């Protein structure tokens, strides 16, 4: 049995090695769990929307709640102009949520506990939002870096600071999700290790902690997916409704 708390994060290859142009594109356990998450979402939503009853069943109720939740979040934070981006934010939220939640199952792998996964998602959002901003406002989007009511003397300094603040968006977005997931899962594993090493006599206290932490981790899994999606909405809002 692996007692190393970081062992759960190791990525290993499943099946044959695939190399294209010197880049390792083999199918790993990380890719497997991404496929599982996407497949679970697909099955869950297609079952939930199959029967359209006036009085919804359990699955239909959950999928409708999910839809309403995201729709409300987008209209609250980014306004009605963001409606066309609903499919993107919906898939983003459900994907992150299911990756986090499937990671909570024993013996599974948490895809979002790897910074490369969250960073790619965040950089994609960052580039998309920047492109949308420039398409909607042209060069006027650069006004985002020039806050109103700043003395001219300070302007060069403020612009540099604003640009750094803008560039820090994908970093903070990805690091937050990755750090929360990794820290939580490491902590669970460490407390699990305490239960084993303290045995029947002293193991009950860490076991209790483990149970409490599992509850907390489920909260964090949901919360981080929510924060990830709501920040995307906020960035989208900056790009769509330019008012600084």
């Amino acid at each position, binding site marked *: 049995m692996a007692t190393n708390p970081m062992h759960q994060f190791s990525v290993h290859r499943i099946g044959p090695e695939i190399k294209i142009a010197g880049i390792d594109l083999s199918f790993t356990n990380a890719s497997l769990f991404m496929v599982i998450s996407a497949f679970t979402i697909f099955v869950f939503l297609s079952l939930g929307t199959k029967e359209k009853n006036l009085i919804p069943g359990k699955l239909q109720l959950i999928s409708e709640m999910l839809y309403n939740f995201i729709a409300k979040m987008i209209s609250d934070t980014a306004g009605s102009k963001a409606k066309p981006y609903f499919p993107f934010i919906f898939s983003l939220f459900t994907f992150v949520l299911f990756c986090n939640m499937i990671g909570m199952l024993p013996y599974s792998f948490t895809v979002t506990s790897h910074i490369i996964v969250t960073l790619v998602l965040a950089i994609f959002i960052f580039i998309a939002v920047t492109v949308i901003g420039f398409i909607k406002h042209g060069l006027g989007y650069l006004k985002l870096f020039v806050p109103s009511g700043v003395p001219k003397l300070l302007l060069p*300094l403020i612009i*540099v*600071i*604003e640009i*750094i*603040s803008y*560039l*820090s*968006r994908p*970093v*903070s977005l990805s*690091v*937050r999700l990755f*750090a*929360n997931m990794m820290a939580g899962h490491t902590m669970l594993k460490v407390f699990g290790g305490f239960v084993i090493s303290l045995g029947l006599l002293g193991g009950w206290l860490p076991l209790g902690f483990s149970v409490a932490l599992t509850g907390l981790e489920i909260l964090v899994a949901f*919360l*981080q997916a*929510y*924060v990830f999606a*709501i*920040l995307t909405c*906020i960035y989208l809002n900056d790009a769509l409704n330019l008012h600084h």
Partner: protein
Amino acid sequence: MPDTKDFKTRLKIAKSKLEKNMNQDDEKRGSFIGFAFKLGTELVAAVVVGTIIGFILDTWFDTKPWLIIIFFFLGSAAGMLNVIKTAKRIQEES
């Protein structure tokens, strides 16, 4: 007996009201926890990005270590700006 019945219905109404309020509080608290998680990384991320930009520019212009120092402080300022922006957003919402 009508008195106890009356009391029971009133208790029921009061309980349902209380539950409603508690649920609302929970929802609000949930979003505040989300914001609280947000603030810390917001500050650190800008410092990291600023320092990285400084490092890249330093190797570019061969001016070690001046730009990395300057951009570290600019990054810290950007981090504080991020936190202030987020705090303002929380204030607007509540």
